[in-house]
């Protein structure tokens, strides 16, 4: 085994069945360096460099179509699921290059979880099975499943509402509840980073509020990166912000500016950022 493999093994990425205890837990740092993206020959993202700090919430904002979601999906190697997709640049999860040849995408996705815009609980499984589904899919083990289910649902803010109906099917919940179920499901595999792609855009205001509370509570244990169209939401939940923009039609998206949320909104450095946060376009 080469040196790289030994290292990767220690981090628990390469070795099968590594007990969760061996894997460093807690929020991790994501460092994107000069990341670009293509769909086939079309470049859609250009040279994005961003540090997403551990234990903090980083919001990606900007008008639609600027590559925010593409960037997010690159972070957990979901971008390559699409045929013809390609990536340039480096992404470091703490000290690990997630695009290294030795690292399989499934391992990466176990460490970096994702919640989608449209809630997608598995319809053929019950609530409890949904929460545990990540274990089965990623090959993780757990000593106490009951506890894990309760713990995950608690962290997602859903436990009290479903504690008595864990056996019911996921489809019987409301939209907001389904989304929280998806959050619980993602949390059950103990990811170190959680990516959220406009998680509240399909939900009503009350559910949105509940989820925003959840995000704030989660941030200590899990680094969160959230894409949002809603500037007020970005200001409410995030510590840091990054503003994306497409200059011309057909050009690739770029990150214009990033920094602490307060600073970005109150005193943006770039004119275009100022234009967006003050609602002049978007």
């Amino acid at each position: 085994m080469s040196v790289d493999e030994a290292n990767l093994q220690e981090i628990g990425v390469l070795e099968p069945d590594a007990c969760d205890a061996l894997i460093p837990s807690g929020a991790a740092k994501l460092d994107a360096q000069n990341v670009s993206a293509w769909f086939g020959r079309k470049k859609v993202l250009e040279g994005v460099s961003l540090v997403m700090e551990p234990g903090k919430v980083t919001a990606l904002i900007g008008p639609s179509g600027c590559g925010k979601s593409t960037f997010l999906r690159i972070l957990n190697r979901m971008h390559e699921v699409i045929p013809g997709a390609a990536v340039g640049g480096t992404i470091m999860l703490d000290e690990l290059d997630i695009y290294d040849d030795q690292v399989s995408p499934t391992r990466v996705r176990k460490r970096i979880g994702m919640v989608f815009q449209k809630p997608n609980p598995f319809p053929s499984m019950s609530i409890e099975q949904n929460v545990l589904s990540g274990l089965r899919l990623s090959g993780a083990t757990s000593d106490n499943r009951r506890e894990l289910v309760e713990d995950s649902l608690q962290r997602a803010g859903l436990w009290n509402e479903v504690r008595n109906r864990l056996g019911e099917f996921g489809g019987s919940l409301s939209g907001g509840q389904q989304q929280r179920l998806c959050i619980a499901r993602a949390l059950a595999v103990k990811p170190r980073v959680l990516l959220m792609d406009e998680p509240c855009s399909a939900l009503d205001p009350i559910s949105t509020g509940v989820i925003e509370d959840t995000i704030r509570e989660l941030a200590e244990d899990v680094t969160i990166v959230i894409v949002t169209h809603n500037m007020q939401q970005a200001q409410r939940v995030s510590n840091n912000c990054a503003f994306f923009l497409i200059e011309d039609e057909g050009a690739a998206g770029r990150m214009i500016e990033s920094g602490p949320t307060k600073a970005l909104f109150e005193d943006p450095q770039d004119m275009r950022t100022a234009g967006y946060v003050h609602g002049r376009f978007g």
Partner: protein
Amino acid sequence: MVSLVIVGATGAFLFWYARPALKAAGWWGFFVHSIWNPSAGRFGVGGLLIGTIMIAAVALLVAVPIALSTALFINEYAPPRLRRALVGVVDLLAALPSLIFGMWAIFALEPHIAGIAKWFSEHLSALPFFQLTDQSALLVKSTFEAGVVVGIMIIPIITSVSRDVMSQVPREQCEGALALGGSRWGMIRDVVLPFGRSGIVGATLLGFGRALGETIAVALVISLVFAPQPHVLQSGSGSIAALIATQFGEANAQARSGLVAAGLALFIVTLIVNMVARIIVNRAAKRGGSRIARITVAEAVDDMGI
């Protein structure tokens, strides 16, 4: 229901000409007994009915694994060019006439069948179906051989319907499974297959219906016996369709009436199987829509709650 009337009319014609034979054999007796002696007025296709079903059952056992794998491979694994090629292969398999399959079976497949059947009879004799009445029994022209050929013939229809159903699985669920760290097989196992489950069952039933009606390939392959034959590896099997095909040419009016009656029996059985299959497949295809409806309703109710 007008549709039932039309189906009934079809059945009625067959029935009319089947009457003489049915009268001779006894209405019930025709379907239960196993004998074929037209000149004596003794008819009974019971054994043949059982044989037909058995051949179709073996065919399913052969076809479903291959068809399902092929469907999954085409939908989830194959790159675009390979996908088009493989779809063409499956379609071509469906287009080949039954006659060709039968001829290929006798001359090319049969030698291998004997060997495989021998292996089964030696190693799996614990199962009653695989036993032989005596050790020197002929192991070709059996239910097993017919089942294998018919199985190959129904692969395309099972593949094609399964593919249709499985391709409708919502992308977001597949992505959800992958985002949790699942492998492609994990996604298929936990999302695609549960979604397609009832559709695949429907596809299987459609294949079963088709297998029940398979005539020429079976007629060429088996050696026809009228009594029910539980030993699937041994020579001798039953098939109503094969009976009609082989006996028709030389039959007199009375015998032909018997054949029409046999055809009636086959018609009823395949009709039922196909109708059930269609219902299941149609229901599976609509599933995605009904779930979304449920979400919206639950959400509306919930808005007033939390």
